């Protein structure tokens, strides 16, 4: 992708670690690639349970965009999240879904990448809790918005001590599985 | 059916399962509770009282 501002929306169930994924994506870009990112999310009671989302804007330059206007990249790990947040996604947005959970994705004009992140988490890592890491890896591979090295550093720095290994493994698994898709 | 669970309201908290004195409720694959042995149910209504989501009805006899 070229030198502009990329608007990324990550979404899924509450509890899937979507927010953490957004923060890690932002940190990877801004702390480990010395580029720029801003990250925001929904707050408060309305954000509890049900669908959850986190948003990141990524650029090579300083960013003055503090609200997502229309996502260039849209990741959805649940049907509910897909339905709720696809609304304003850009016509040409890259869409990434978990095909096991998003079964109905009417997206004629958009590029849709189906990455079975939950299956990968379960089968390759043995823990569904790392689903967000798998998704991050996949997103990195598909969009090229962040390098895998920076992502790995960001993950190591953020996750609870002792869980670095398994999380890194998950990121890589997602990355590998999606690499050929790009 | 002695109890009817409204799956649109149920949030799968599993409280009903533990609170049935006869252990008659189980969760399906999706985590949704169901009455596994309707005949054993004595309609004590425990499950309905403790459901935080008003998701369990015990139909009136005359309604059945």
């Amino acid at each position: 992708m070229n030198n502009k501002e990329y608007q990324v929306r990550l979404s899924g169930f509450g509890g899937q670690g979507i927010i953490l994924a957004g923060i890690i994506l932002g940190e990877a870009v801004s702390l480990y690639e010395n580029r720029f990112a801003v990250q925001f999310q929904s707050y408060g009671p309305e954000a509890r349970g049900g669908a959850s989302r986190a948003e990141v804007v990524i650029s090579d330059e300083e960013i003055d965009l503090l609200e997502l206007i229309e996502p260039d990249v849209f990741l959805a790990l649940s049907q509910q999240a897909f339905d709720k947040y696809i609304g304003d996604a850009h016509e040409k947005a890259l869409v990434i879904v978990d095909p096991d959970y998003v079964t109905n994705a009417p997206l004629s004009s958009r590029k849709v990448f189906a990455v079975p992140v939950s299956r990968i988490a379960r089968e390759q890592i043995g823990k569904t809790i790392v689903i967000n890491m798998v998704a991050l890896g996949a997103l990195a591979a598909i969009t090229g918005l962040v390098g895998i090295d920076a992502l790995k550093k960001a993950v190591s720095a953020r996750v609870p001590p002792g869980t670095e290994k398994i999380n890194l493994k998950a990121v890589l698994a997602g990355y590998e599985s999606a690499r050929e898709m790009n | 059916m002695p109890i009817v669970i409204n799956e649109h309201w149920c949030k799968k908290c599993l409280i009903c399962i533990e609170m049935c004195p006869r252990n008659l409720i189980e969760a399906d694959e999706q985590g949704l509770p169901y009455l596994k042995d309707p005949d054993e149910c004595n309609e004590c209504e425990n499950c309905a009282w403790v459901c935080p989501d008003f998701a369990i009805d015990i139909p009136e006899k005359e309604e059945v």
Partner: protein
Amino acid sequence: MKRNSYKKYLRTHKLPHIWCPGCGHGIILGAALRAMDELELDPYKTVAVTAIGCSARTNAIMNCNTIQTTHGRSLTFASGIKMARPDLTVLLFVGDGDGAAIGGNHLIHAARRNVDLTTILLNNSIYGMTGGQYSPLTPYQKTASTSPYGNLEQDFDVCKLADAAGASYVARGIAHDPRHLSRLIRGGIEHKGFSFIEGISQCPTYYGRRNKFSSPLEIMRWVKERSVRVKPETYNFSQDMDGAIPVGLLSHRNLPEFTDEYRKLVEQLQKGDNA
């Protein structure tokens, strides 16, 4: 009362509600609705007043007059309503932060005046709505987002407080035993005067998670195990419970009710005037 007839007090089109899975507030509301049903309260003559917090979410799903007010202030609005219209039945659902922190003063003064209001405090030991800060009912040393090293403050025995302030009906029930709680609420509504019922609820999302409870039920059970049934004739608020939680009707007195007293004054003055 039919088994599901309590549902007429629900705005069912507002369901499912937005409480988290396993949140105790729904259980306590269910107990209250069944008490209303037993008493066959007329929804048009019933007003439920809440303030802000997850506790206040009771309101939008109840099918009667429902007034959600500012944080901590529901008792002031409710007092105005009851004083202006003593014929209405007025119920309150308050949170532990809402009712005992910011709203503590209104609680003790409404209790003192003995206005005929029934206040149900949904005690989940935490500020749920704002994401898990400690409240005046968070037990000593429990953690919350603003007591990451354990709560250094003592918690209120809020029933004792309400009683000391003058409440003429004081009771405590728990989510694990909603039938009992429902009877206590029913008694509170029937009682003419200020009734205070603490309903011990659970917040699995914040209180539970922070304090290593693995499920909503675990919190319910933890409370249940510590609870002991008491009777007003023998219970004394100062007695040492050795960590146990007294539940049941704790005190019950006949005291002049405020709107009644006021009505008598008006009658007396108007008689005097016209005489």
